[in-house]
């Protein structure tokens, strides 16, 4: 379960993308804290109710919907956002795959898909179609129809 680890007046100290970030606690979601306090706007708000997945991040190693997590939960946590996914590489291999399969149209949902997809790959390096459907079932895209996104994760529908 999600627990709040800091409250009003506290400073939240979190490791975000490998760097220690200290910023005031806010009575908001972790999404808003990341965007407004940590200045990391790559993570997007699409619905603010956990339906669209655009705000997906890695929280202590697991994919999480940052719009549903209270900001205080970040205290002493390790967070990776889309800005940190590639680490020291030019691109994370999945980022390159999304480019190669033309999975990016408007791009607004893409940070969420990449974070959810990378979490799946960390768990299952060669996921099957059912794994991909399940792992990405909480992410909405209105542009692509999902086929190019599934292809980026190695799933291609055969005629």
């Amino acid at each position, binding site marked *: 379960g999600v627990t709040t680890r800091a409250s009003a007046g506290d400073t939240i100290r979190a490791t975000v993308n490998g760097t220690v970030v200290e910023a005031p606690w806010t009575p908001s979601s972790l999404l808003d804290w990341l965007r407004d306090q940590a200045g990391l706007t790559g*993570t997007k708000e699409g619905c603010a109710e956990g*339906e669209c997945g655009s705000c997906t991040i890695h929280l202590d190693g697991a994919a999480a919907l940052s719009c549903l997590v209270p900001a205080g939960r970040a205290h002493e946590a390790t967070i990776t956002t889309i*800005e940190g996914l590639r680490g020291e590489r030019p691109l994370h291999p999945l980022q390159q795959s999304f480019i190669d399969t033309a999975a990016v149209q408007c791009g607004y949902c893409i940070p969420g898909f990449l974070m959810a997809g990378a979490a799946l790959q960390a768990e299952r390096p060669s996921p099957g179609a059912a794994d991909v459907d399940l792992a990405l079932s*909480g*992410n909405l895209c*209105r542009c692509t129809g999902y086929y190019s996104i599934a292809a980026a994760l190695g799933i291609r529908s055969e005629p």
Partner: protein
Amino acid sequence: MTLGRSLPKVDAVDKVTGDAVYAGDLHPEGMLYAKVVFTDQVHARITHLDTSAAEAVDGVHLVLTAADVPVNEYGLTKFDQPVLIGPHGTGRSRVAHDVSRWDADHLAVVVAETSEIADAAAEAIVAEWQPLPLACDLDAALGDGAPLVHPEDGTNSNVYHHLVARKGDVAAAFAAAAHVIEATYELPHQEHAFLQTEAGLAYVDEQGRVTVETAAQWVHEDQAQVAHALDVDPGDVRIRYRAIGGAFGGKEDMSVQIVLALAATELWKRGIERPVRCVWSREESIVGHHKRHRVRVHTRWAASADGRILGVEADAWLDAGAYNYTSNKVLGNLHLTVAGPYEIDNARIDSRAVYTTSVPGGAFRGFGGPQGTFVAECQINKLAEACGLDPVEVRRRNVFREGSIGITGTEMPPGVSIPEVVDACAAEAGWDQPRPAPVPISVFASLSPSSDRVRRGRGFACTYKNVGFSFGFPERSEATVVLHGPTGGVDDDAPESAELFLSGADVGQGAHTAFVQLASEATGLPVERIATTFSDTATSGDSGSASASRLSWMTGNALLGAVEEAEKAWRDGDRPATGVFRFVPPPTEPLDPEGRPSVPNFAYGYVAEAVDLSVDVETGHIVVHEVVCAVDVGRVINPSLAVGQAEGGVVQAHGYVLCEHLRTAEGRILNPRLSGYLIPGIGDVPERVRAVLLEIPDPRGPWGVRGMAEMPFMPYAPAVIAAVHDATGVWFDTFPLTPDRVRAGLRAAGVDR
């Protein structure tokens, strides 16, 4: 060369790294927050407005009301909507500013230090309202004594736009008919559900121009509308687009542009030189922008025994909602498509746009074409059944050919390819092969897969869609190309690089990538040598809207002209050499009020789709196995992007026909969230979409290119309806085909297990 290559999108790296900047990501130093306060009144006259308590909230800088709007009216094709609703105005709007006609009409704009303060101040605004009678749907708005939504129009009806088609002798056609197919179709709203909600940042720039950085579809139209409402010269307004998180027609009209420009101007006048940002929540977005129109069509088709369409009668009513938006234009495309891509000698078609006190309808991928296509394709599929003909064969006997006379009585533009598109789709779908056997499907985790309650069917549909602005709208597109030689080079050097200045919006479809590829083709320079400046009124001429599947077609032609001009300047010795070109396509005409012949469009795209699906007749669930989408793109610019438009268009239509259900009551949307309005997720989509890109050149298109972004959406819904009929024997004349509706429809028709 460069055309036909699947180059990565020019913005792909920024979009996978999170570096792409959308308007809502902008957060400059000192930024203020704007809240747009909606009236929350479906139809009411405001009698009192008091913002003093809101203004007194600590941290509030500004509360703007109708009295602050110089010219309090806007609208893309008709100035019928106030910017802000209030009891006091400047007296300079045609539409009454003291009446709310939609619960998302704007009452005030609050500007504050934080969004929380702005929200709190919005709550402190006091408004008093005198309710006005409602007319929330077509029946109410068309009934005797219906309240008039726009009495300022000076008519006694809510029907405010009426198009007619009159051809031949309809009575004789029906008298001679072996088959008459008659039905009434009711089509639902659809919400765009672009992932990025409306957002913008406004400030007065160093040149004194009020500037709005936002996400929409046509920078110059935004500029013109802001300038009109603020009563300033368009040159004093600058519009710039940041990354755009989807649009689909839903960002074609104003959302935050005018109110943000007004707020930035008022702040500046008061000596507060701080930028102001507004980002709509998902609920504000769904409540606050137009939808794909609700439509009702009653139609009768007469046909010969061998399946030749003899005559068409149709009465169409478009629920425009409270404001026109682009309804008068959407109506035109409905009107053109409601009789299908078929040669019809005898026709009487009356199409009407109707004001109601409900959410406005407006632009959405296909722009009236999906609704007209639904009607036409259901009709011809029913005709095939009545004649005992194959659905593909009945189309072969009726579709347009080169030189055919269209529904408006004039010759179709050159390059009619629907016969080839229909044949290609049928061939790719294996239409002449036996229908595949049912496969076990499991619609609930609690039900084991079974095929004994599953029936499988196939459906076919096709259509056509104009490319570019229609009906006499002054279509044009400007491009600027600058050719550079090598530094320190000599006069006879060839250009080494180019710069493009274009305003066409990349809403995600890949327009900017296509522009670079088109420019590369025109200049012979590799794409890496082409620098770009896009979507900014300060740097580009007017390229027109990202709509009507027009950008590649229009911009490609404009680029060809600009490159020719630049090369001429180069030969004359200019270094760098600049070419500026304004492309104007063949003219079009408004429809004639009496239905006499007119030329509505200068180019069309053509598409056909075949759908293979299974229906669980016990539960009403539908699983789509395969969709073949054959679309004539004329010439492929970028195969990956074109396939992306086909797949994405099909899946948007999959939501439209199967699961998206915008519920309204008394003029209000009941499910304005993504948890209540369900768009397809990855597990909901067809198992396969096979895009077949045909390259039959459009003689007027650049390198033969046709527009294609809307077309894949259009035939899908009627193809699904036909496949459900093929599987079950039951026709559905309305949708979405949610399981409860399918099950009820099957039971009503006597279909059990």
